């Protein structure tokens, strides 16, 4: 479907650019700043391999004698390690960059997964209605009967149980993406279903249906572009939630292994050393995580207010 959005989107983007949206974006200094920080952080983590002063994955480059060094401005800090080193001698700044990359990657892919599942099911439920609709919505309710974190723990547990123990590290990232992605589709489905039910009755849908276009085409080519607004808002807000869920699962010990750490893993490992004075191992990744989530939240929040103030 690459040509479909291209077909319908320019006009939409033009509309957006001239709309309140752009104006309100520029009017909100906080949002601009937040968007800027978020973009910088995401860019820095994407380019981690280029920017990071060290490669924390290269075991041969790590020297155990460099472990537990404080940040450069503290006594005993070294210029090679701006933010200090962790318990096995990895550069904190580099692990944060690589860790953010991991966190953002898991966050984005799991949101994408939720989005695809949720939008598809929502479109089908809203457009087709009937039994299919009932099944999908009951399924959604079953899932809503449990808090996200528990659902994620459940799915995580199932997937980990299915994978043999020696493989768990290899599939940890996939397991996280699936468990977070599968536990968050309901919001998308509900929003899309509601919008679809409204759109279904619109004249343009009736019109294309009369021309003889099939339901799949109607759903994805005609209805979908018109429900993109709420989807984008939910996706942005879910991104920060997904990153936090990843961090929490890693904190509870069912996340990414410490050989390929995410921000959550770094914080988790670092807390062992917090009370003993090596605060930098926890605080810097913690600050990075909070900043990332905060800025994404700010952008999402503004987007919600600007696009659709009533969206719950």
């Amino acid at each position, binding site marked *: 479907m690459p040509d479909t959005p291209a077909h319908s989107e320019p006009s939409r983007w033009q509309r957006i650019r001239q709309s309140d949206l752009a104006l309100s974006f520029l009017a909100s200094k906080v949002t601009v700043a937040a968007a800027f920080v978020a973009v910088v952080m995401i860019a820095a983590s994407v380019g981690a391999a280029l920017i990071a002063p060290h490669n924390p994955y290269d075991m041969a480059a790590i020297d155990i004698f460099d472990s537990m060094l404080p940040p450069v401005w503290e006594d005993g800090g070294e210029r090679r390690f701006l933010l200090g080193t962790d318990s096995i001698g990895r550069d904190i700044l580099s692990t944060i960059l690589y860790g953010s990359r991991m966190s953002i990657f898991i966050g984005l892919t799991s949101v994408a997964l939720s989005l695809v599942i949720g939008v598809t099911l929502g479109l089908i439920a809203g457009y087709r209605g009937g039994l299919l609709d009932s099944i999908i919505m009951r399924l959604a309710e079953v899932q809503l009967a449990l808090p996200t*974190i528990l659902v994620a723990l459940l799915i995580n*547990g199932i997937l980990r149980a299915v994978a043999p123990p020696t493989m768990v590290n290899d599939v940890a990232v996939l397991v996280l993406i699936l468990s977070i992605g599968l536990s968050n589709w309901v919001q998308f489905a509900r929003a899309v279903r509601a919008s679809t039910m409204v759109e279904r009755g619109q004249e343009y849908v009736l019109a294309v249906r009369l021309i003889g276009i099939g339901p799949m085409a109607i759903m994805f080519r005609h209805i979908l572009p018109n429900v993109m607004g709420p989807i984008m808002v939910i996706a942005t807000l879910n991104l920060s939630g997904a990153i936090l869920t990843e961090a929490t699962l890693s904190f509870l010990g069912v996340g990414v292994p410490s050989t390929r750490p995410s921000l959550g893993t770094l914080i988790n490992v670092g*807390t062992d050393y917090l009370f003993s004075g090596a605060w930098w191992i926890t605080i810097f990744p913690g600050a990075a995580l909070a900043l990332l989530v905060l800025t994404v939240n700010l952008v999402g929040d503004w987007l919600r207010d600007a696009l659709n*103030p009533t969206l*719950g």
Partner: protein
Amino acid sequence: MIRYVSGRLTQSLLVMFIVAAVAFALFGFVGDPIRQMITEDASQAEIDRLREIMGLNDSVPVQFWRYISGAVQGDFGVSYHHKRPVGTLIAERLPATFELAGLSVLLSVVIGIPLGVYTGLHRHGRLARGLMAASLVGVSIPTFLLGILLIYLFSVILGWLPSFGRGETVAVLGGFWTTGFLTTSGLRSLILPSITLALFQTTMVMRLVRAEMLDVMRADYIKFARARGLGTRTVHFRHALKNTLMPVVTVIGLQLGSVIAFAIITESVFQWPGMGRLFLQSIQQVDIPVMSAYLIMIAFFFVVINLITDLAYYSIDPRLRAGALKGNAHA
């Protein structure tokens, strides 16, 4: 009416069954409980013997059926690790979790609603914007990090508050319930964990109330009320807030459930002797009876709360009643 209620009940039972099945399926295969009970030098014969006597060699459906039929009678088995009935284990920890969760919900409501009303009414005010920004900071800090930082500051550096546990507790209601509200050390112990747990919920309540306020303020009847010349205060509190509260109350009910679930993290950070910590420990110890019982219980809370909420909505909102007849209660 009866059709609607019975429909909802059936649905709830279905949810419970699915959760039970998933809980059982999930944890039946995570690690090997035997491995947790033995040491490096356990002999194969010993391991085989334990497998046999624990019924782990039975087929999965047999194990599941044994579990379900016990659970329905309130018998969740005896914990592998603690060697005590799971029901007792949970009952002993229930008060700790409920007091923590209850206080947190209370805090989040007492702080969240006024802030939400304020930010809703003064949407563009400086303070309101500041509060909104602060609330975002609140939701952006991971619960576990917040808890650890609070311990570091108030327990380790300042030495003001205890870093773990419930302090002294008092048995009340004939020993059925233990409470930390009646002793100084119990109250002191509640401060940090309840703040940790409440922060996220507070910001949620505040943002929700604000959103509802904004919504209601745009509604026609508010405009009419204003047009009728009613005072701002009357409009705001008699009409706007009142209409905001129903969804808010509902959400608070649901919050209680999610607070209990989120308490897993807080309890693990503060060594709070509650159900969440029991659950986490049971995951680490592959204590299947405890894990499944906990999940079923949480699901049960949620289902009951959901059911009550739905029925309350149903009795209040006539539109739902009309919808229910068409089998479309959840548009």
